């Protein structure tokens, strides 16, 4: 008998279900990357080359480190699924513009190698890798990490000027600079030598000017006006400034079903309520909670970082608890803590609590849990 040349085509016998909706992890990653496009564009718009270098350095090195790790560990190289690219991008978006590429690459290394691969890669990491990268950078290079370049902003300035909205922008920016130089002289001085201008983020200014708030509206004049804050024409991390861009991407992800609306909703709500109540009792302007909502990394944190699949709880109730926990921690750190920005650390802390939440917040099966013995 002749040997069989082409192997016979086999009949697949497998467990049900025999059909699949066609979704894949890489398709979901692609959607998240797509959702980040407006944020990237806004970052490039506001910070130009300073944004591009950081984003490129982070993304490329993240992909490289992931491939390298997987090669060294001898497992399949899965950079094609886009998760490393996404981690790199998210890291870049929470770094200050103009950060030295060397530091950006170091951040990527921390994110991918320490934050993700040592735990066993995608799906097994406990912490949000991008935030691990940022936290390590912040702890080791506090000065570089809190040096904020003001955006290249003429366009929006002109619009707001023309519309003649609440505050005169130029005076606000000037006042902000003045305040910044006054209270943060050291940073300014070091940075001024290199880049010319540097600036404080609205959150930092908010923190420093808290005593002024009590005296009434006048303190708010020293902050960028709310429109500037929402549109993102303020100093800050690359991706955190432009609220409409973040909202656009976030809502897209919610619509596509990749993100549970509960996490951003309850997170933002909690921060808003706590800062609102705090502000109310201290007699601050009613704008106080809005500055907290739109300033700093809260928006991008709520829509893109806290909602990371791997590090957030599974059940709906668990996610609500997680989001409220995030809100409380962020508000506490921002109002009473040593840092002006609390999003990164509160996400890392709640990531730690996620397994615990998953363990104790369980779903009840349809029809209720039958009586169990003991």
């Amino acid at each position, binding site marked *: 008998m002749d040997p069989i040349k082409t192997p016979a*085509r086999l009949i697949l*016998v497998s467990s049900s*279900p025999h059909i699949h909706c066609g979704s894949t992890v890489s398709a979901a990653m692609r959607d998240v990357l797509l959702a980040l496009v407006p944020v990237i564009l806004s970052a490039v718009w506001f910070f130009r080359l300073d944004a591009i270098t950081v984003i490129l350095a982070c993304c490329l090195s993240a992909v490289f480190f992931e491939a390298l790790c997987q090669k060294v560990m001898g497992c399949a190289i899965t950079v094609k699924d886009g998760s490393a690219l996404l981690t790199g991008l998210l890291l870049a978006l929470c770094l200050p513009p103009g950060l030295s590429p060397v530091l950006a690459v170091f951040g990527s290394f921390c994110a991918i190698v320490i934050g993700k691969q040592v735990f066993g890669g995608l799906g097994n990491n406990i912490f949000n890798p991008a935030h691990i990268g940022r936290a390590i950078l912040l702890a080791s290079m506090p000065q570089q990490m809190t040096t904020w370049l003001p955006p290249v902003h003429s366009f929006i300035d002109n619009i707001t000027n023309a519309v003649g909205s609440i505050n005169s922008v130029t005076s606000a920016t000037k006042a902000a600079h003045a305040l910044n130089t006054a209270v943060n002289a050291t940073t300014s001085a070091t940075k001024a030598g290199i880049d010319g201008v540097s600036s404080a983020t609205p959150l930092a200014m908010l923190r420093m000017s808290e005593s002024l708030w009590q005296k009434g509206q006048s303190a708010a004049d020293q902050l960028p006006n709310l429109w500037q804050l929402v549109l993102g024409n303020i100093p800050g991390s690359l991706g955190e400034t432009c609220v409409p861009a973040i909202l656009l991407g976030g809502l897209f992800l919610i619509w596509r079903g990749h993100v549970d609306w509960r996490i951003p909703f309850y997170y933002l709500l909690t921060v808003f309520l706590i800062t609102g109540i705090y502000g109310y009792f201290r007699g601050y302007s009613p704008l106080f909670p809005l500055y907290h909502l739109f300033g700093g990394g809260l928006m991008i944190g709520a829509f893109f970082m806290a909602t990371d*699949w791997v590090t957030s709880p599974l059940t709906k109730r668990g996610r609500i608890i997680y989001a409220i926990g995030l809100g409380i921690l962020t508000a506490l750190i921002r109002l009473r803590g040593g840092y002006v920005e609390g999003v990164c650390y509160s996400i890392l802390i709640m990531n730690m609590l996620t397994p615990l939440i*998953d363990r104790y917040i369980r779903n009840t099966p349809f029809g209720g*849990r039958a009586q169990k013995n003991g």
Partner: protein
Amino acid sequence: MFSRKATFKGGTHIPAEKNLTNSLPIIRMEAPEFVYLPLAMHIGAPARPVVAAGEKVKLGQLVAAAQGFVSSNIHASVSGMVTRIEKRYLPNGSLSDCIVIKNDGLDTMAEEITPGKNHGEIKAETIRQLLLDKGIVGMGGASFPTHVKYAPQKDGSTIDTVIINGIECEPFITADHRILLEEAENVISGLKYFLLASSAKKGIIAIEDNKPDAIEHLTRLTRDEPNISVVVCKEKYPQGSEKHLIYAVTGRTVPDKGLPSAVGVIVDNATTAMQTALAVEKDLPCYERVLTVSGDAVNKPGNYLVRIGSLYGDVVEKAAGGITGDIGKILCGGPMMGFAVGSLQYSVIKGTTGLLLFSQNSPLAHFLAEETCVRCGRCLEVCPMFLEPTVIAKAVKRRKWMDAAASDIASCIECGCCSYNCPSHIPLVQYIRMGKQFIMTGGSGGCNPLFKN
């Protein structure tokens, strides 16, 4: 016309793919040369054969009798001679004795079957007895003996509603749809007999909104029936699951691990109702059923009335015009809950709703490799039982049977929504089935070498 469409929480939308066969009328298939009647074709104890090899049997003659309460009678589906009783596999992988009958081609009806026999006044007991005698089982796939459901309730609870399940939420399958269209009168009278047998007040025929023709037809026919109504359910998988149908239609929640009778409801499949009408009015036992043959690897997809015990090969050959192209997957039942089998050497049983054949090029014939869980939570979101499939699957993978049990693995209805939606292609249902088997064997793990506790 319909203000509210009944539905349930969880579940998923699946392309129905029914266009291949939903407009094709039911065609009766010519009886095959041999039929193989598995004695364990229903849930419960296998039937006990009452014929021996070499014996002559007639069409509809009792060949195996119910053994115990939860069991069912089996009747010859052709006239001819019993050649042997042999062991054969069922699609679900279990082994069963089968009575093999060689067809003499005459279809001589058994003497005891007298169509138009006068039962006198039809009472609840008459119907119960007929359900048992005529071997009626749930024909929507589960094959649970119907007479058991209508026996007086053990806990003394009363039944107030009987629901006829005309949902048919599995893709590709259209047998019930055709029955609702072509045998509507029988389905309705079957429902009336069910109402009589259970002394329930209200009869409901539930149909999914993707079958507007059936909804219209049944609504018209039941217009003058005060206690029978048609309820339209939203198209969503698994609407046909008993518990979810009851919830959607009546708003009642069957307790976890409880029976529908606990909330005063009995659910029966449309085909079962039709078969019951035939049993009561024509004195016919259950020896044939309608099944959908579909998929891209058959020449003539369609809905065929097939003798119970016909081999799949005969069905494909005689009714569906044979196979076309390279065959890649054979499914007994629907793509969500049906069994994949490796050959066409299996017989049609009372619960076979469909036979699907797919070519090598069909996505159904492609194996999706498992990746790691990214904890996206899709499986939790779609689970109609509100379980945590990924948690259960992980417990099973780590052989933590107690953890799996604590995660309510036993409540899983194996509907497949979780695996269908998992972006990492994790065969969650397979892990869950495996876990159930370990737990069912009392913790001994059976002979599975993976067991460790």
